[in-house]
């Protein structure tokens, strides 16, 4: 016989569970663990989460949904002050790393060769390794071409790190003006005179 809880009790339990969890807590995990022996429907859990999100709207911490679930995080506007708690500065990433990561994020699944094609330079193994070590990317398969190169994709941890709930929340890719290329290149006036 599963236990029944009041809405208030449910809110308290969900709140505490998310707070003490080491990692973001998904609704699925919440149901499988904390709420395992409690009779509670999905809509009620959603409602409890919504109550919490609203409750924390005006506080120093906020409840947010990221790639792997819900977590509490400090209100972003407080970050400049909070960062003084730590001596070490957060790591900066090189342009090579960021460009590689951007290509994997927007063009996944993508092979190393395809990344190199766009960037016009070799992608160092260190970059790929460090991105894999950080659990931001992973090998999701191998492309059916000679050499069977690995196909890379971003992980849910990547979403957690950038506080996104899905890839759809990434900024949109800057627009390309393809229609203009043909037009301009075919325009004889644009052709330079030979030297």
């Amino acid at each position, binding site marked *: 016989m599963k236990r029944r809880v009041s809405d208030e009790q449910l809110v308290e339990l969900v709140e505490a569970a998310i707070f003490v969890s080491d990692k973001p807590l998904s609704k699925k995990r919440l149901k499988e663990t904390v709420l395992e022996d409690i009779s509670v429907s999905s809509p009620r859990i959603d409602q409890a989460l919504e109550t919490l999100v609203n409750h924390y709207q005006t506080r120093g911490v906020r409840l947010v949904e990221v790639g792997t679930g819900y977590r509490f*995080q400090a209100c972003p506007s407080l970050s400049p002050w909070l960062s003084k708690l730590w001596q070490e500065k957060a790591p900066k990433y090189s342009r090579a790393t960021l460009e590689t990561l951007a290509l994997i994020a927007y063009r996944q699944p993508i092979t190393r060769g395809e990344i190199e094609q766009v960037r*016009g330079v070799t992608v160092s193994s260190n970059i790929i390794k460090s991105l894999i070590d950080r659990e931001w990317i992973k090998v999701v398969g191998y492309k059916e071409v000679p050499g069977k190169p690995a196909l890379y994709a971003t992980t849910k941890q990547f979403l957690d790190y950038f506080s996104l709930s899905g890839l759809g929340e990434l900024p949109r890719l800057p627009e390309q003006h393809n229609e203009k290329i043909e037009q301009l*290149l075919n325009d004889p006036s644009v052709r330079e005179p030979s030297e």
Partner: protein
Amino acid sequence: MTEALQQKLPLAFLHGEAVIEKPEDLYIPPEALEVILETFEGPLDLLLYLIKRHKLDILELPIFSITQQYVQYVEMMKDMQLELAGEYLVMAALLAQIKSRMLLPKHEELEEEEDPRAELVRRLQEYEQFKQAAENLDEIPRVERDIFVAHALVDSSTDNEPEFPDIELRELLLALSEVMARAKTFEHHHISAEALSTRERMSFILQLLREQNKPVEFARFFTLDEGRSGVVVTFIAMLELIKEQLVDYIQSATAASIYLHLKG
């Protein structure tokens, strides 16, 4: 930079001739130049820089002047003994090729003939797009730098060591059959020609475990779109690793997920 200094040392050798004068449009002191040259992320980046600096439109890629400047930069990089990636030289060759094609008269009858610059323009645009995307990505608030995750602690008196029950082989097989059933739905992706290597899969499992540095759930080792044979190879690799005592398997409760972890 004095005139005298410039005349003493040629800046570069271009087509066998010493370049004593710096290129007209370069106003960068040499010590700064080295820093700038090192920051280029490759030939496309250098080309974009040249185009932007002259406030030109990528779409109007002025191949003659750009080629000339590009080669000057590459020569300077060589001169400063910067480690020059082969890609820079490939691009120099490509630019020279486009240049020579531009010099050829256009065939009237071949209307479909594409502008020789088109492919390079497309690549430059694509690179520019992702260069921008990388900058945007860097702006997104991220954990450690802009986002601080809040935590609370559980009263330590409830903090007890989890106990792991033993698992029977039957349960391992049961878990396999579940994965098999799931793999079935992916069967149209079945790869027929490839002989999947058990040894390779064993390294993959070990690698995954080492990277994760914690127990990994059974199902995570399977790549479902490899079809049944892929699942079988992965499973055999697991058994092999368990037999060789390289990995061990645990289960947090009866009928809960099975985890693999590195032994020792």
